[in-house]
């Protein structure tokens, strides 16, 4: 099986705070992989390091064979990252924002047009796509940002809490969207503290707590292993 991400003994310290304490995992091509854990478990730090935003204290990460620490420019060609607390440029309209982002992924006008149209379909904002981002609700902004991350058909989408702060309807739509994209061949690495979401979306998960991966496997395997009804129960059992 092709490995898209290989994380080995990853450590990240912020001064005296040990955010990540030597974790290792792999993500295979085409799968949805979830990093699951409570707040401050080290999920976002791990995703930010893989996305080339933060530098690791020690360890090694490879994305499509490229070393994240040594070849960040190469890694950025393959990834599309959606931060948990992201925003869009407020003075641009939703459409202009998508056009701006599409500019970085294609030189061909036709192709760029296709990317933007795909983005508008994913965002599903109707006529509001022509309005300024500053007038959008939180849900609308999140849908625009997810559209930005997925419209370029990335080889690897890194989504940090993709449904964070959204209502039930919006969250459901976004989960469906992620699932469909994965079927098209995009590898997805996501983080969440919503255990139900993880169960619905992920092929495999790693449970992370206080910077350490405490368990690995598919949701089904883990439920069977711990004789639990859902991942929430698995997690509680593991960290007990």
């Amino acid at each position, binding site marked *: 099986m092709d490995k898209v991400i290989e994380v080995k003994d990853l450590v990240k310290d*912020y001064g005296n705070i040990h955010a990540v304490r030597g974790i290792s995992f792999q993500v295979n091509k085409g799968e949805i992989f979830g990093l699951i854990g409570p707040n401050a478990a080290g999920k976002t730090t791990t995703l*930010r390091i893989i*996305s*080339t*935003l*933060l*530098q690791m204290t020690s360890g090694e990460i490879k994305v499509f064979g490229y070393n994240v620490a040594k070849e960040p*420019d190469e890694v*950025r*060609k393959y*990834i*599309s*990252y*959606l*931060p948990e*607390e*992201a*925003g*869009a*440029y*407020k*003075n*641009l309209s939703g459409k*202009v924002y998508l056009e*701006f*982002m599409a*500019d*970085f*992924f294609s*030189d061909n006008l036709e192709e760029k047009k296709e990317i933007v149209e795909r983005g508008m379909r994913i965002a599903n904002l109707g006529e509001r796509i022509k309005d300024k981002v500053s007038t959008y609700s939180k849900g609308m902004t999140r849908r625009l*940002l997810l559209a*930005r991350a997925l419209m370029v058909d990335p080889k690897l989408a890194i989504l940090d809490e993709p449904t964070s702060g959204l209502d039930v309807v919006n969250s459901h739509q976004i989960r469906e969207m992620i699932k469909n994209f994965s079927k098209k061949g995009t590898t997805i690495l996501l983080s969440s503290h919503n255990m139900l979401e993880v169960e619905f979306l992920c092929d495999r998960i790693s449970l992370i707590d206080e910077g350490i991966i405490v368990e690995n496997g598919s949701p089904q395997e883990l439920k069977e292993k711990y004789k639990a009804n859902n991942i929430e129960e698995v997690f509680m059992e593991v960290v007990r």
Partner: protein
Amino acid sequence: MKNFYTLIKKEVRELMTRQMIFSLVFMILMFGMMGKFVGGIKEEAQKSVSFAIVDLDKTPFSQTVVETLGGEKNVIKENNLEEALNKAKEKDIKALLVIPEGFEKDVEEMRGAKLEVYSILKGLGIGDLSSSGMIKSVINNINEKIATSFVQEAIPGKNPQDIMNPIRTKEFVVVRDRTVRGSPEMIQGLVTSQSVMIPVILMIVIMYSGMMVITSMGMEKENKTLETLLTLPVKRSYIVTGKMVGSALVALIMATVYMIGFRYYMSSFMPSVESTPILKDLGLAMTPLSYFLLGTSLFLAILVALSLSMLLGLFAQDTKSAQTMNMPLVILVMVPFFLLMFKDIRTLSLPLKILVYAIPFSHPIIASRALIFQNYFLVIGGMLYMAIFAGVAMFITIRIFNTDKVLTAKFSFKKRK
């Protein structure tokens, strides 16, 4: 390169908001109105001052004075001062000149004749205060004529000017190997324009461009767009330079509007500086090469400001803190601005001299004066220093952008435990 242009375009679109365009239009209107207003006051002050004369002497000599001051049309035919003043107030006249009885006699007998001048003030504006000044200059003229005729009568065959002003000056200005007849005041216009206009232009452009760059970084952090931007497949050096160029373009538009307005406002009450013959004779006129070097010097100063602002912008957490982050830049511009406006660099003490030379923004100001004297060594030296300074600041900024400090850097005034 395409990505670079895309970043510049985005930067301009983000910064050129409706509010900013509105403030630019407002600024143009404000300067226009101020210029018109101040120009109007000046025009009013320059208009021949309305005054009236009361001739209580009624002699041939007092008649001559009346004629010199504009003739019968200005005369108020009243026989006492109080009535004349009331009439003057009614007619909105600003000054009343009274020729008292016995005036001719006092002049003839050289007893120091007195003309009384009553300035009628209705306010404290420039126009209101200029009336007596104008009348005094006319009286001085009359005085000189009377004195000349007295001297001519007393000492015939001599030039009255040689007796009234036995010592006169013959002034020369020496610049390097050239000596030209004239006074230093004659080159005052050029010196003023170089020592005021250049620093003002520099200050406006630097403050605006610095503010734009820092605000742009603050906005990226406040709107949480920086993380996404940094994970795009674009070189970090493009992000840095794209931000600098985009912000500089917006700043230049703002600064140009501001400067045009400022110039219009200043020209409404300041005479324009033109190349006078003395400047050419002294070889002090700015040559095309001087203008080129001055332009390059200003450009390098802007480059320094932009690269320094990018560095400072790294510490801005939002648009509010961006305003504070601009302070060091403002101080660096203000110090040479005020020091060099009043003093020449050569007259400063050694520590101040070192300080001024060390601040990169001093160099265009120094250059603007050094170029008049064709002191190219000082100018080019300053340019080299600014180029190195900007290069180092940009190198450090790009290095930081290539690390995670771009996201984590912040100033903390709290004590570490």
